[in-house]
């Protein structure tokens, strides 16, 4: 395996590659492509909200038959909202984030030549690719893509009579998601097996970097919850195509009574959110893992409370599977269930708070190297706190009654999982770009990218809380039919301007990314003076990662700024420098953290 001179054609190296490093790049670039579509869509529907029913030539260009003289149709507004959510949650923040960094880092950080199964890994990517293609094709269906919201609640998603997008567009959505789930499951199984079995000598579970813990636990949550979404989707396909009544009952539409009897949409809601809520953590945990690693490295300090961090990841993972009902307080389910879900939901605040406090303590008395990766990680902590706190309002069933499905919810989840996870993803790209492409990204562009993005993120989502508290429902094509919301229009204009500027500013990142691949400064082996194993591999990628033996691990990954005298901050560094690679043997009498 250590010999990388076996024959590789263009196809096996760049297309049907089984090398985890290449697959991770494929995930990243595909995810970025989908991300551009998702962000563009949000910019279009934000324009409609701010300047309702105004004619824009940009709509004529992008919306084709779904606009009249440059005015967006109500149907396509809902479709844009739906596909924006689907793409961002699944294609960008699940596959693009987890797929990229799990693939890149798991073998490199645990000391393995590759994933347990390179072949399955390749299949996982190509299934993701196919599902992306199907999703993109669904945008061009004549009646429009799926438009029942990303949660695709039936009966709206089941009946083409109810909304045009529930025809062929919805079929393609379901097909795409089924393939996506297969991809995710194959990937997750591979990650779990690899972490459990392929750790190098000395790499105990308690010496794993927190990225590994996060990816490992994320994969487990995925394996537990994604199959439930698959079954929900299958039953929906049955209802749509084969006349079953899992979710449908007593429906009168387009002047006739349909034959469905005995099903319930609430069943779908349960099945959907049994994935849907853990999905939030599938998105967020990898970002938090990446942040833990980056904050520690760039603070030149050990992550504070390593074991507490692992404990809170496990607690969040466990709790995340028993809180789904907080999306359904007013769905008509038994109020007693609402009480139970309020209790479990608010419990999640405890491990989340522990994580936030631990990040801040890690910054305390650090020697912060404010690289773009570090800034995005700090930004994540900020948005995670802001978005997490409003969770205390929404998770409380009594309070949820009046703000459910308003813009308050939109603001909450965008900050806590959308912006936070995207920040984690950007942090990861800036930090591990040298590992992926052997070159560095430009820091000045990185700084511009960060500051514009965080200002715009807060500019969009902070005021959005307030229009939600004013009672404005989400997913309204326009609010002009309600004079009581007239005074919110100006705020919506401001939000849209921030959204457009923030969206366009991502060009800075994309340009930085692609130009750096070809023209970036060549990377050194360990540019951030990091402790973890991936920085012991050569800059140029080789099959099998390490040219010789896989190095042995002797310590945890966070020995930054370790001192000769642990109680004296002015004493010398124990190993002569402020970082100690995991491969460095312990000194005699060295204290182990």
């Amino acid at each position: 395996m250590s010999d990388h001179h076996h024959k590789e054609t263009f196809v096996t190296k760049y297309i049907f590659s089984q090398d985890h490093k290449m697959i991770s790049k494929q995930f990243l670039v595909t995810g970025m492509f989908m991300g551009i579509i998702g962000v563009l869509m949000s910019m279009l529907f934000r324009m409609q909200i701010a300047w309702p029913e105004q004619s824009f030539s940009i709509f004529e260009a992008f919306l084709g038959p779904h606009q009249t003289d440059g005015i967006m149709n109500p149907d396509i507004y809902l479709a844009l909202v739906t596909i924006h959510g689907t793409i961002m949650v699944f294609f960008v923040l699940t596959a693009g984030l987890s797929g990229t960094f799990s693939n890149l880092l798991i073998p490199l950080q645990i000391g393995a030549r590759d994933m347990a199964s390179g072949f399955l890994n390749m299949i996982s990517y190509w299934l993701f690719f196919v599902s992306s293609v199907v999703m993109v094709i669904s945008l061009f269906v004549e009646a429009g893509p799926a438009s029942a919201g990303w949660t695709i609640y039936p009966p709206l998603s089941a009946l083409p009579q109810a909304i045009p997008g529930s025809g062929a567009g919805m079929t393609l959505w379901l097909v795409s998601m089924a393939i996506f789930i297969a991809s995710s499951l194959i990937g997750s199984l591979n990650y779990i097996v690899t972490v459990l079995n392929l750790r190098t000598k000395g790499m105990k579970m308690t010496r794993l970097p927190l990225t590994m813990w996060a990816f490992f636990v994320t994969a487990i949550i995925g394996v537990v919850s994604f199959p439930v979404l698959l079954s929900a989707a299958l039953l929906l396909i049955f209802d749509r195509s084969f006349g079953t009544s899992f979710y449908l009952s007593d429906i009168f539409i387009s002047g006739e009574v349909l034959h469905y009897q005995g099903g319930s949409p609430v069943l779908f809601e349960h099945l959907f959110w049994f994935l849907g809520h853990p999905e939030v953590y599938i998105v967020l945990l990898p970002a938090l893992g990446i942040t833990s690693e980056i904050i520690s490295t760039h603070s030149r300090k050990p992550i504070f409370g390593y074991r507490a961090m692992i404990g809170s990841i496990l607690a969040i993972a466990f709790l995340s599977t028993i809180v789904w009902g907080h999306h359904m307080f007013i769905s008509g389910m038994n109020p007693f269930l609402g009480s139970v879900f309020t209790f479990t939901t608010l419990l999640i605040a405890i491990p989340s708070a522990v994580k936030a406090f631990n990040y801040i303590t890690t910054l305390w008395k650090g020697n912060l190297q404010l690289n773009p990766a570090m800034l995005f990680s700090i930004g994540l902590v900020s948005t995670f706190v802001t978005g997490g706190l409003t969770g205390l309002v929404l998770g409380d069933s009594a309070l949820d009654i009046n703000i459910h499905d308003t813009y308050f919810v939109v603001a909450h989840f965008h900050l806590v999982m959308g912006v936070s996870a995207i920040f984690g993803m950007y942090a990861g790209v800036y930090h591990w770009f040298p590992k992926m492409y052997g070159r560095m990204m430009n820091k000045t562009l990185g700084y511009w990218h960060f500051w514009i993005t965080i200002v715009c993120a807060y500019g969009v989502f902070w005021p959005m809380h307030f229009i939600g508290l004013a009672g404005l429902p989400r997913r309204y094509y326009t609010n002009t039919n309600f004079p009581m919301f007239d005074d919110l229009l100006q705020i919506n204009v401001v939000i849209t301007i921030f959204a457009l500027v923030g969206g366009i500013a991502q060009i800075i990142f994309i340009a930085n990314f692609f130009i750096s691949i070809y023209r970036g400064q060549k990377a050194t082996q360990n540019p951030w003076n990091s402790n973890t194993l991936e920085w012991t591999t050569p800059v140029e990628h080789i099959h099998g990662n390490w040219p010789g033996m896989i190095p042995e691990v002797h310590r945890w990954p966070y020995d930054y700024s370790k001192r000769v005298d642990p109680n004296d901050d002015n004493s010398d560094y124990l190993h002569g420098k402020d970082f100690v690679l995991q491969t460095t043997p312990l000194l005699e009498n060295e204290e182990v953290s």
Partner: protein
Amino acid sequence: MLALFYIFIGIAIGVSFWQITRILNLRGVIATDEDNAKQGKYSLVFMAFLYAMMVYCLIFMNVLMLPESASIEGEHDDNLFNITFWLIGIVQFVMQFIIFYFTFKYKGNKNRKAKFYADSHKLEVIWTVTPAIVLAFLIGYGLWQWNDVMDLSDDKDAIVIEVYSQQFRWDARYAGDDNTLGLGNVNYIDINKLNTMGVDMSDPNSQDDKQVTELYLPKGRKIHFKFRSQDVLHSAYMPHFRAQMNCVPGMVTEFGFTPKFTTEEMRLNLEVIEKTNGINKIRMAKGEDPYEFDYLLLCNKICGASHYNMQMKITVVEQDEYDKWIAKRPTLASVIK
């Protein structure tokens, strides 16, 4: 406003291009001490922006918020909300300060040495137990309120009203003198006979039911709502009453509240007056008719193309006025032949 938007777009694109061309001669890749110093300062500048925005929104958007709860049950909701909001507001202000101040304070340079500080059992216990205690209070109050609102079992003398949803309109059915709704099912819908809500007219309870397109509620009486939908999910959202419940095809869902102020009283509420004046200033500038406050029921679950325009007016009146109004409504038996 639109011109401002184009200017912003222009600036954003301009800055992007300017920066992208600079990449060709900028080779910096790793933060130097100067970068750290600069970014540390920017962190403070950003913090100033964040605080300015947070405070601005909290103060100046207050007038846009919903007025005080118009239902008795919603009072505790407002109370719990205020407690929670103060709590998370304080935590938010403290935490954001710490995050961005630390970024500035501990910005790296060559002469600094980070403190090796890996663990503290005491601190971990503190920030596990403190949130746990605070949450125990919030959960306790929240659950008490939830159970209070959702428990409709002891409302013997509540007025029963069915709210009926379809794409894209609301109807309502009062239970009549017997205060019992007749059975309903989509199979009974007969548009030609004006049986649009699918009421079983062979059920004796149906005869005195009254179908209306606008809700009239008496002040001070508990209302027991039953919700139905004939096609897709809808959600009956009555924000002024802190009330919301999904309408689910195939089942009947319930919610209840007691109106506290008549529409007329609410129009004299100071918060409402202030908000209405603000709205009317905007409407006047556009040459639109002035707005007068009304309670509304909105659809708040995505239900199709015209989801954004699915509303029903609610009028709260004194009991005697309500009695007069309801007496004038025709019974179903007289409408559906």
